[in-house]
């Protein structure tokens, strides 16, 4: 499963209570569309850290890294690149 698929599945199951993949597109803003609130961001970070074995630092907790499926996948890829 790709990072995008994994993140999308997590959000669909835990925030939207649906398995309809059309309910969440790659570039949908999680905050603007009201899919995730501030507590939800913390849940998402906990998921990302556990799922992808990375640590999200305080300075990385920004919309550019976390506000859409696409952003998250790109952020995870960049963290893995740094580790490699």
């Amino acid at each position, binding site marked *: 499963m790709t990072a995008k698929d994994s993140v999308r599945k997590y959000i669909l199951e835990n925030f939207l209570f649906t398995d309809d993949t059309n309910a969440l597109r790659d570039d949908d803003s999680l905050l603007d569309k009201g899919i995730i609130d501030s507590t939800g961001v913390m849940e998402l970070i*906990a998921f990302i850290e556990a799922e992808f074995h990375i640590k999200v630092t*305080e300075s990385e*907790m920004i919309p550019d890294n976390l506000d859409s499926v696409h952003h998250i996948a790109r952020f995870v890829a960049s963290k893995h690149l740094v580790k490699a």
Partner: protein
Amino acid sequence: MASEKIKNCMALDLAAETQRITQSLRTALASHLHRRGLVIAMSGGIDSSVVAALCVEAVGPQRVYGLMLPETDSSSSSLDKAKAVADKLGLKYEVQNIAPALQALGCYDRRDEAMRRVIPGYGKGWTSKIVITGGLQGRYNHFDLVVRDPNGKEQRERLPLQEYLQIVAATNYKQRIRKSIEYFHADRLNYAVAGTPNRLEYDQGFFVKNGDGAADIKPISHLYKTQVYALAAHFDLPEKVRSAAPTTDTYSLPQGQDEFYFALPYAQMDVALWAHNHKIPAADLARQIGITEEQASRVYVDIEAKRRAAAYLHSPGLVVADITV
């Protein structure tokens, strides 16, 4: 011009506003709530003190019952301030320490257990608070745990989600137990419960659902905190109440409301909220309250984020079918 409007945004005709609120209180009691008086929990803070004054102004001290409900982490001066206000207003009150009830429910134990998972040495004689961080810097808000050991040494660690939720859930017992006691007295006296959120708290979700967020009437939820302070002066409330900075009075380490929840101190947050509501450009807000335009933009984003989160707190119990006849 936006800059002119923002300069006087907190101005308020205090006498006229007092009359408007007190008339609303009387109408609410007579026509909507059908209750004989008002119960008010008084923390010694500015909001509950002003609400108590408005209640007394509306229906007279003989129809207002005050409650002071301290617990282990309450500041020692809170009770003195609450009593000073109650004595000045001439209303009857009683003091009930809720620490035994909170202890029995596991409030303190569950909170401390979560703190120990983050800082294993945390224990007897230590003090603590949680501090919000991130929003003003353009990051997502999260919380840090700050503790001080018995020797005065401080430590600060980022709070993981589960520990943050457990600490907040445990401390929420305080507001919910207080509300249970308020409604006991309201029920036995056939009174209504007056709530104390100001506009900033009401708008931004700075209250506990079914805790201090619950009430039969909320007389100052439309007033900015700056205006609440102005009303306190109008009522000539004790100086020690008027001069105290807003705190949460919930954690054992002194904690400002801006540390716990808001991006800025209240005077600046009031203006920011007013400016956001009136679509004032971030640049004008920045100039007025002495922050950068970038920070002002981030405060606007933060206000909207907190509003979204507050929707759950304001939501009544949902029904799943139309039950109107």
